[in-house]
């Protein structure tokens, strides 16, 4: 029992770091993914190309490699980032690429008739997107967005390799002292489960709220 009492406080503190990493990256990825999606469906070729290259690179390479490039590689060209910003940058860029794909699909899935109804009233492209297309695509995007966020929370554990003391790193540190890998890793797993379930419920609620117009 003393093992639990001793290890739980530092594990929970480290969980806070995991949550900070996840939440900050989620917010940045959200903005990044959103604008990348808009760029990808826009008619401006340069924007489209930049966005496609970005998505292709970050979906096409392992997150761990991205973390290494940012933390160990960039200093060589005089860009030095602390471990935590490096981790957040890698996680945001990675999740942003995935989110942009969900958003793009959601934006494209809004019925053609909605575009026509909006422009027939005399709306500009911006008014149509802001008032009609984007609000409808959010509901469609939430389930896949939910998936990306679950993966993002799990992926925060990869940041442990660049010395960020988040949940997994702390677990390993405690195990080095106590030699109790089974118990400690199980506790860590349980904490991940609680955090992820919390976010899943939150997004489910959001989906329900944005779907209220569909209820008979």
């Amino acid at each position, binding site marked *: 029992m003393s093992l639990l009492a001793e290890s739980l406080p530092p594990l929970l503190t480290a969980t806070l770091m995991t949550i900070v990493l996840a939440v900050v990256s989620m917010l940045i990825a959200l903005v990044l993914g959103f604008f990348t999606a808009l760029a990808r469906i826009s008619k401006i070729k340069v924007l489209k190309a930049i966005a496609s290259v970005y998505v292709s690179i970050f979906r096409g390479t392992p997150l761990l490699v991205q973390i290494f490039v940012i933390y160990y590689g960039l200093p060589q060209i005089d860009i030095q980032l602390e471990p935590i910003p490096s981790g957040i940058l890698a996680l945001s860029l990675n999740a942003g690429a995935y989110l942009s794909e969900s958003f793009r699909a959601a934006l494209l899935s809004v*019925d053609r*008739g*909605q575009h*026509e*109804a*909006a*422009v*027939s*009233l*005399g*709306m*500009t492209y911006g*008014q149509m997107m802001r*008032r*009609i297309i984007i*609000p*409808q695509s959010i*509901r469609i995007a939430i389930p896949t967005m939910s998936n990306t966020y679950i993966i993002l929370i799990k992926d925060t554990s990869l940041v442990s390799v660049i010395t960020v003391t988040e949940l997994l790193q702390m677990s390993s540190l405690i195990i080095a002292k106590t030699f109790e890998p089974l118990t400690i890793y199980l506790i860590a797993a349980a904490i991940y489960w609680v955090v992820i379930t919390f976010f899943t419920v939150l997004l489910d609620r959001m989906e329900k709220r*944005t779907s209220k*117009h*569909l*209820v*008979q």
Partner: protein
Amino acid sequence: MEVIKLENISKRFGTNEVLQKINLTVNKSEVVVIMGPSGSGKSTLLRCMTFLAEPNSGVVRIGQTEVKAGEKMKGERKRLIRDIRQNTGFVFQQFNLFPHKTAIENVMEGPLIIRKMPKEKARAFAYSLLEKVGLSERCDHYPSQLSGGQQQRVAIARALSMEPMVMLYDEPTSALDPELVREVLQVMKNLAKEGMTMVVVTHEMGFAREVADRVLFMADGVIVEEGTSHEIFNSPKEERTKRFLQ
């Protein structure tokens, strides 16, 4: 006074000539019904009037705004096309109501966002339009909670919300169950009586007989014949028209 003037409007989809040099003038308070077999180009003609479909050549004039077909979508031209669209109410076969907005929000959207009306004023105006189509007590319902006929009436109110010079209807009752057709046609008849200028693509002959000042019969991308509903239905001159009416 001319509200719509189309000159030599042509439209191709690939090598298929859907519209061949159509000329058409619609005067104020006139109700024009366009009939014809499917694929005759009647919906495309309607969509070309507001550039929902870009004609390949010709000139469209709505009110005082004139736009040439087939030119690049640049700033000034975009603005003119928006101007045309704001002056024409378009009613779709599939209603195309905004599903995430209630009936009254659908009708308020244009006044609020495009005409920049204050919210309370826009709401009162939208309410009066819903009253006009007989749906004021449904104003807080979402489209999914309304019948097809009710949805189409809301869509008509939404089209009226920009106070257009002319209303265009693209087969407004074709997606409706037969028992719901009448309520929509009734709303359209009332508007015609008030002097609204209207162009209606429809298969409803009863409506054409009762309301139309002029009936156009289209086939293969041209206007084959035009006249009063009496002339077209009772003594058609062209072979194509006769065959269609049989």
